[in-house]
């Protein structure tokens, strides 16, 4: 009943504010859906800045959708719909947050896709890149360009600008922004190795692909775990061999870092030797890499159950596996369980294997986050989505997250500086080395690097002497497990990324072209199946050549042409 009244009020407000301005529901309309006619009066089309934290005189209802953790425990009386964040928003902006739907992470995609296909979308929500493209195509999105110009706070601009335009480019069509996203740290994968096993066998840290192979072989042949050692972990059932230009989050337990050692970038649109974009999965380098991985699989170096396990981290946790490819934040992921089972398990991260010739680690990288904040074209106040994030960036550090996960902040995009982790690691190192203290950092730095203050305050509770080593026995995990997770990930994971010589490989494109919308799902499926079978020795490496032909014939050539056109247009 309540919902009906609200939607009625909403419909009414759209009619009142929106009529006249919204002549056509056409997204391409260069002026965009202008709800606010006042801007036009000044004559200058360029938006003048408005108060990024402006409070509404009358209460405004704003519907959102939220991905929730059903196990979360709130303080007495609080809930997803009524908690410190919603109250803060009400107080600061006079906005009432309504939830069109909430879902746990496992149902989230289903619910969002259902909302999109049935055209029952909230005023704003956070979606994935594929969902964003689909919504744009369906004409469901509001043009946010002018709202961003008018309402984004200085801090938000600083963060978005730190990505060199990528964070804007990824959400733009025809020069207009249809979503807000944040820069990302890069979502690199590294090679994680049990250093205690290297020491036990007297081995050096491997650098090249061949050395890595030798280490895996030594682990397996000596059965260094004593319970049937698995050299290299592979993806789980449904897991990806590698991140792709569309699923470009961190791909844990895939083969990403190993692929890059061959100069192979499957799933990435890279520039060929001739400077023309080419799909990384069909290159000779990828063929070489697959051939080698198949060889490793045949030799028993790779988990024989790759692709089948329900949880790829299982052999890591049970202390049987020695090498895997994963993101910098493994301290949050499987490592706490690993250490719970074996406190001496010393997983360290390495920016390897390096590429022959250059001697550098050349991982594939992303420039912007995979979370897109989108606003419905029917929303009466699109600027609220931006104001909410202004508020979040300003006040995030003042919230007590023990009274509710920060993820429950409506429409939250994990904003951060492009170099957040690098800056933090360097700061931590200097504080540990005694060359700086917390007082040497400015308030502005603390406001842009939101967690820095807390990181500096807690590092010494979990990090023991000697400070120049990151081995597991120089940490006190129990002192503060959550702060250990962050600091270990930063110092070990990002530490390795900072110290090694590295050059990043970006994809030419991170979104779908028109033909992809029709054909990509099937091409991708063909690729996954073929590669998986080649690695698992179910098909010979020649299957790769057949795949390349089929891929080209079934739309790949057309798509490549479209990507080339896209690339040329961006130049």
């Amino acid at each position: 009943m309540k919902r009906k009244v609200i939607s009625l009020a909403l419909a009414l407000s759209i009619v009142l504010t929106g009529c006249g301005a919204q002549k056509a529901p056409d997204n391409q309309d260069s002026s965009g859906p202008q709800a606010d006619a006042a801007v036009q009066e000044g004559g200058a089309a360029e938006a003048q800045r408005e108060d990024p934290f402006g409070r509404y005189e009358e209460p405004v209802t704003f519907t959102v959708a939220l991905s929730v953790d059903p196990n979360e425990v709130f303080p007495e009386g609080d809930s997803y719909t009524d908690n410190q964040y919603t109250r803060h928003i009400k107080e600061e902006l006079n906005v009432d947050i309504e939830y069109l739907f909430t879902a746990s992470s496992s149902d989230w995609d289903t619910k969002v896709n259902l909302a999109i296909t049935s055209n029952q979308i909230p005023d704003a929500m956070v979606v994935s890149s594929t969902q964003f493209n689909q919504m744009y195509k369906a004409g469901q999105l509001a043009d946010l360009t002018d709202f961003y110009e008018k309402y984004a706070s200085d801090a938000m601009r600083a963060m978005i600008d730190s990505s060199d335009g990528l964070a804007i480019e990824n959400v733009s069509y025809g020069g207009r922004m249809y979503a807000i996203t944040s820069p990302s740290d890069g979502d690199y994968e590294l090679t994680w190795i049990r250093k205690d096993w290297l020491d036990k066998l007297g081995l050096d840290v491997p650098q090249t692909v061949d050395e890595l192979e030798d280490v895996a072989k030594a682990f397996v042949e000596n059965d260094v775990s004593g319970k049937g050692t698995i050299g290299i972990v592979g993806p789980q059932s449904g897991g990806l061999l590698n991140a792709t230009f569309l699923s470009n989050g961190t791909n844990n337990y895939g083969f990403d870092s190993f692929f890059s050692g061959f100069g192979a970038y499957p799933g990435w649109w890279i520039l060929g030797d001739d400077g023309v974009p080419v799909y990384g999965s069909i290159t000779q380098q990828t063929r070489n890499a697959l051939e080698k991985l198949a060889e490793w699989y045949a030799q028993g170096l790779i988990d024989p159950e790759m692709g089948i396990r329900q949880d790829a981290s299982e052999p890591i946790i049970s202390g049987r596996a020695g090498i895997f490819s994963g993101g910098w934040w493994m301290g949050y992921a499987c490592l706490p369980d690993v250490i719970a089972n074996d406190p001496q398990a010393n997983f360290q991260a390495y920016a390897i294997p390096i590429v022959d010739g250059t001697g550098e680690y050349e991982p594939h990288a992303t420039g912007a986050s995979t979370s897109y904040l989108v606003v419905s074209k029917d929303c009466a106040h699109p600027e609220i989505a931006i104001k909410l994030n202004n508020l979040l960036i300003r006040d995030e550090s003042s919230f007590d997250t023990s009274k509710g996960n920060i993820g429950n902040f409506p429409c939250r995009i994990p904003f951060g500086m492009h170099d957040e982790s690098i800056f933090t690691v360097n700061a931590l190192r200097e504080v540990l080395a005694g060359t700086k203290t917390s007082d040497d950092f400015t308030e502005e730095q603390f406001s842009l690097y939101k967690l820095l203050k807390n990181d500096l305050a807690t590092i010494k509770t979990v990090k023991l002497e000697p400070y120049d080593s990151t081995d597991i026995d120089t940490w006190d995990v129990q002192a503060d497990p959550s702060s250990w997770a962050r600091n270990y990930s930063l110092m070990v994971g990002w530490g390795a990324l900072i110290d090694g010589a590295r050059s990043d490989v970006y994809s030419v494109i991170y979104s779908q072209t028109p033909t992809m919308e029709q054909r990509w799902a099937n091409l991708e499926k063909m690729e996954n199946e073929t590669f998986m079978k080649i690695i698992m020795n179910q098909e010979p490496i020649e299957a790769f050549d057949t795949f390349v032909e089929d891929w080209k014939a079934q739309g790949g050539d057309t798509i490549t042409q479209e990507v080339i056109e896209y690339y040329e247009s961006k130049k």
Partner: protein
Amino acid sequence: MIQGKSFSRRVFRAVNGVILTALVLSCLLPLWYTLCISLSGKSAVAGGMVSLWPVDVTLSSYEAIIKDAGFIRSAGISFCRVVLGTAFSLTVIVLMAYPLSKSKREFPWRDAFMWILIFCFLFNGGLVPWYITMKNYGMINTMQGLVLAGGVPVFNVILVMNFFRNIPKSLEEAAIMDGAGPWMILLRLILPISKPVVATVSLFTIVNYWNEFFQGLVLATTERMYPLQTYIQQMVVTLNMTNMTLEQYQKVSKLSNQGLNAAKIFVALLPVLAIYPFLQKYFITGITLGAVKE
């Protein structure tokens, strides 16, 4: 019986006993395994160390369930749904089955209705149109949505219909002679002698409503309205945790407590297992007479 004492008969019995025991074990072990997981420590489970005996025995999973308001609430919703749904579904099934059990001579439109029923059973517009329709009816987030969407299982209608057909015609003819109308006949004559099939269909309906999760998932916009199976399904499904950002990972990491999940599965199984023996005495007659028409 004389043959029962022969040697080959005894061998057969022994072999038969072994085969049947093996089958029984194959059915019991998975449940036992689930129980073991639910009683084992978290690290042991994640490390794959539990097989047929609990490791690091703990009752913490069951303690957690008792304190879990979400679980209790979902169980309540499921219970409500089963009670209301069974009442609704049974009424509709019986009311449909009776006219359809008539021959074409007794009720000329009978075949037409039957084929419409079969057609509707097989064709559907797909998830999205169905969802939009439900939304327009106001079925989202409501108990009537959970009850009504479950619908009329055609198989059950056929079962009851066939049972009715097996009732001797003479009974009904006598009633007609006495001037009883169809409603009277159905309520006073047919239903009282149809206890077995009603019990059987009740069981099917109860289990269907209890086990259904997909509609629960689609029709609820918040976990507060999830029926129990949906609640469990969304905790148990294996998440693809391999390709995500740290942000996303932090949101799901708390979900993967296999021991707790196993305990929840086990608790959710109990009601169904408890109700079956209760209805079993009617079950066999109901299903036989419903399925076989002589």
